[in-house]
């Protein structure tokens, strides 16, 4: 395996638990924590999707600039959409956007390589990005956050920016064949604390951390 060019902000918190490593999108990430990964995912599993490439932009000209790059934007503040190629586009407040590629996607790289126009300000994104899945996922959020995640509707495509265990997060709910799951983003420097705390609570609920191998398609879409 060649040397990674990117490192997950959660690496230090995961290093001692990992049993197998991988490098999606050039980022050193955990492929497996142990034989219990799949069982964790069924109960309540937390995965690290920080490897997915993302870029941010804000300003009154941001929506038009993204459109010129072929990136669709949600109409409503605090909402999200998924483009036909799987790219997630989140509208954070009125004029800020977070774009996250699916593996192999090129929108984030194109945004970073294109000079911003008038009224467009790049927002560096070094997020820790998590997914919470499993039948106790909602219970995990209830124990760690005052915001009611049950109001996050995948159909309404709502974005919530709130505080979870004292860390500012952005959250959405997604539907999958395996049920509802939540995607979270937070500043990478708080990532290890958020990860460790959520894993601790998840273990109390019979779940825990899940590597990318067990996440499978959840890590890809």
């Amino acid at each position: 395996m060649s040397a990674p060019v990117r490192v997950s902000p959660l690496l230090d918190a995961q290093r001692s638990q990992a049993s197998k490593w991988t490098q999606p999108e050039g980022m050193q990430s955990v492929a497996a924590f142990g034989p219990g990964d799949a069982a964790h995912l069924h109960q309540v599993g937390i995965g690290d999707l920080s490897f997915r490439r993302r870029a941010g932009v804000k300003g009154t000209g941001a929506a038009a600039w993204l459109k010129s790059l072929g990136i669709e934007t949600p109409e409503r503040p605090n909402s999200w959409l998924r483009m036909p190629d799987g790219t997630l586009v989140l509208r954070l407040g009125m004029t800020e956007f977070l774009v996250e590629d699916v593996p192999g996607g090129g929108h984030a790289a194109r945004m970073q390589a294109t000079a911003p126009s008038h009224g467009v300000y790049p927002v560096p994104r070094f997020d820790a990005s998590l997914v919470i899945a499993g039948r106790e996922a909602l219970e995990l959020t209830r124990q760690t956050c005052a915001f009611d995640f049950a109001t996050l509707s995948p159909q309404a495509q709502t974005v919530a920016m709130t505080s979870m265990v004292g860390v500012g997060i952005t959250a959405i709910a997604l539907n999958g064949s395996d049920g509802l799951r939540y995607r979270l983003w937070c500043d990478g420097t708080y990532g290890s604390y958020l990860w460790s705390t959520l894993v601790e609570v998840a273990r109390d609920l019979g779940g825990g951390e899940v590597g990318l191998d067990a996440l499978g398609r959840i890590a890809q879409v």
Partner: protein
Amino acid sequence: MKLMTCPINGTRPISEFVYWGEIRPAPDANTCTDDRWADYVFNRNGAPGVKKEWWCHTPSNTWFIAERDTEKDKVLRTYLHGDDK
């Protein structure tokens, strides 16, 4: 639990917000007297009553104005800067 309503993000626990003080228009530093400027810089109005205050919803960094009765500790309304209709 105390609650505050962000005009963009809705009603949330007060722990998600920071208070940034009463809105106080600054006097023109080029024309006002030293006493007037010193009063603006150093003094604050502590009398209870209805005040317009800056608040920020920290997870989204949304700055807004809250009209709050500091005598009864009641938030009367909140709105974005420029939406004071």
